[in-house]
């Protein structure tokens, strides 16, 4: 009897310890899902972790737009190891958010994905340099070091450099530096030009302190060259699903409702953007407020004004994006019109227009956001 007890006790001790942990965890993480019984469950896979870049979807959920449309939407955050195209193709999510170029690359590999709404109508990618270097155009980057994240994010920058007589692919006339996820390298002047999204990296530079003056860096310390102005801007965040899933008439109805509610979320974020920042921060309690406030304003500038109505693909922008991706993504063939459809987004916009909602935001004006030290 006594011989048995020692190991029984040990296992019991460990068992009890694990049980306590499990109990603590499940008690905290079991939201009641009973009232959602009648709602259609769908999952949305984001491109990156929670941030204002996806504010519209979080707003649609927080304001109850999804629920009003009969949907129970599970918003899954992305991250460094998550590829939305794979998650959607694998059936773990019905909808995904990613850059149009990623969708085109995936399609070229034979993955059957379709863009059903192009939410961002212009590119947020810029090349930034320090003003005192005098590099205020792409042409002046000849013989300099230019940073980019690569891995499919480089097409706009490469196209811009080629347009100005450099060859970034073989590094002739320009040196390409693999950009890390923080802007420290740029602040320490390890490169001449760095890629920066208006809504993220640009703000990170402005939120840093200039050691020489003891104050924050200013926009006037920088040259900001948007790819949109260079003429090599590509379409970024859009909503996609699989061709197989969307063939079903019932699924098309779900998609229409999903898009209408999501657009309504984006429209809310246009008209009540500060409130939307709060929604984002509630979903990401670790995010710095100042940085997200800046981001929300810049994201709005990528969507609004939406000439054709929010979510409708502009064929000319699509064609330009396709050509750039074909060249620098080394695609087998030029992505054609089969990669997107506008009927669902148009139906969603029509629904919203009938509700008297402004779907173009023609009178929208960008707000002025003051950066905060450290993005706080």
């Amino acid at each position, binding site marked *: 009897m006594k011989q048995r007890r020692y190991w029984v006790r*040990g296992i019991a001790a*460990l068992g009890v310890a694990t049980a306590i942990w*499990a109990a603590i965890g499940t008690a905290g*993480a079991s939201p009641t899902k009973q009232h959602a019984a009648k709602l259609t469950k769908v999952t949305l896979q984001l491109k990156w*972790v*929670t941030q204002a870049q996806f504010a519209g979807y979080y707003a649609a959920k927080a304001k109850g737009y999804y629920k009003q449309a009969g949907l129970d939407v599970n918003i899954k955050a992305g*991250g460094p*190891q*998550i590829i939305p195209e794979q998650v959607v193709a694998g059936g773990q999510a019905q909808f995904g958010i990613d850059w149009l170029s990623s969708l085109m690359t995936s399609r070229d590999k034979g993955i059957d994905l379709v863009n059903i709404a192009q939410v961002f109508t212009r590119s947020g990618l810029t090349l930034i340099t320090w003003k005192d270097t005098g590099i205020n155009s792409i042409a002046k980057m000849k013989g300099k070091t230019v940073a980019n994240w690569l891995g499919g994010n480089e097409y706009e920058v490469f196209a811009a450099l080629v347009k100005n007589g450099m060859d970034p692919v073989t590094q002739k006339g320009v040196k390409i530096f693999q950009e890390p996820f923080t802007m420290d390298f740029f602040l320490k002047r390890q490169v001449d030009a760095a890629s920066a999204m208006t809504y993220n990296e640009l703000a990170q530079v402005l939120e840093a302190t200039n050691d020489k003056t003891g104050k924050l860096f200013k926009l006037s310390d920088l040259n900001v060259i948007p790819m949109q102005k260079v003429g090599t801007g590509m379409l970024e965040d859009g909503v996609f699903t699989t061709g197989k899933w969307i063939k079903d008439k019932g699924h098309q109805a779900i998609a229409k409702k999903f898009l209408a509610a999501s657009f309504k979320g984006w429209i809310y974020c246009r008209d009540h953007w500060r409130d939307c920042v709060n929604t984002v921060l509630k979903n990401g309690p670790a995010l710095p407020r100042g*940085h997200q406030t800046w981001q929300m304003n810049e994201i709005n500038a990528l969507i609004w004004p939406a000439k054709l109505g929010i979510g409708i693909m502009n064929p000319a922008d699509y064609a330009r994006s396709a050509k750039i991706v074909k060249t620098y993504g080394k695609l087998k063939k030029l992505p054609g019109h089969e990669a997107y459809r506008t009927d669902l987004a148009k139906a969603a916009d029509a629904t919203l227009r009938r509700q008297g909602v402004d779907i173009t935001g023609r009178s929208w004006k960008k707000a002025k956001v003051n950066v905060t030290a450290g993005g706080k």
Partner: protein
Amino acid sequence: MSAIAVERPRERYVEGVKRGTGRVALFVVVLGSLWGLWEGYRSLWIHQGWTWPFVVDNTTMPHIHDIFAALGRPSQTGGPLLGTLLWHAALFTAKEAAVGFALGAVVGFALGVLPAHSKLAQRGLLPYVVASQTVPILAIAPIVVIYLGSLQVTAWVSVAVIAAYLTFFPVTISTLRGLTSADRRALELMRSYATGPWQVLWKLRVPSALPYIFTALKVSATASVVGAIIGEAPSSIQNGLGGEIVVFNQYYTLDPTKLWATNVVAALLGIIFFLVVVVAEKLVVRRAPEHVA
């Protein structure tokens, strides 16, 4: 009589306090020296302007007191304290790691028992057990997530399985080693009594394997925490320490202390797991008959 009865516990008590203070003093001295080394290195490099092996400044090496102070500041303007946020994140990760640890320990033990009884199983199974550890966890994790995700399993369970994957190996190897280390004479004695293999296992082999198993469990306890943190990234989990690490990594230039503070909390969680196993070991091994333990 009564004088002795009063004296003895008192002496023991004084002895205990002395030993206790000694340990605390040692802990404080070691902690203080580590602190001093960090701050000393920092100020020397900054003062001399040395740039090898890396540039030392507030971004690369924040002050230790800044790192701890970050825990007491709000995680965002108007948000909860970073310490509170990380406490909840640590609880979430602890749940994943604990379930993973339990799963890994059981599977690891079972995988160790089988080869201990059959040479065939040892030759057939062991190479694959070893091979499993040469496959990087970063490659396994997404597969586990996709596979369990398609079975409609809650996301954190996938993370627990990933943690279990890092846990089971040391347990298997040590169980096998421990089970075969039983005293030959004792084994022969048991056999002469015509004891069944099941009884030999529980009454002789397992008790003699306990010290080995506990050594492995101590290694696995910390590994399960690491596994849980790594596993959170491909699982879209933002509630745990792994999720916070991704976010704070992104904003590292803006506020490096938050990432460092998260690392400190993750390390503390690993230490707590380790200590739990140590306590369990004390309970078990003290109960175990001396000749086998």
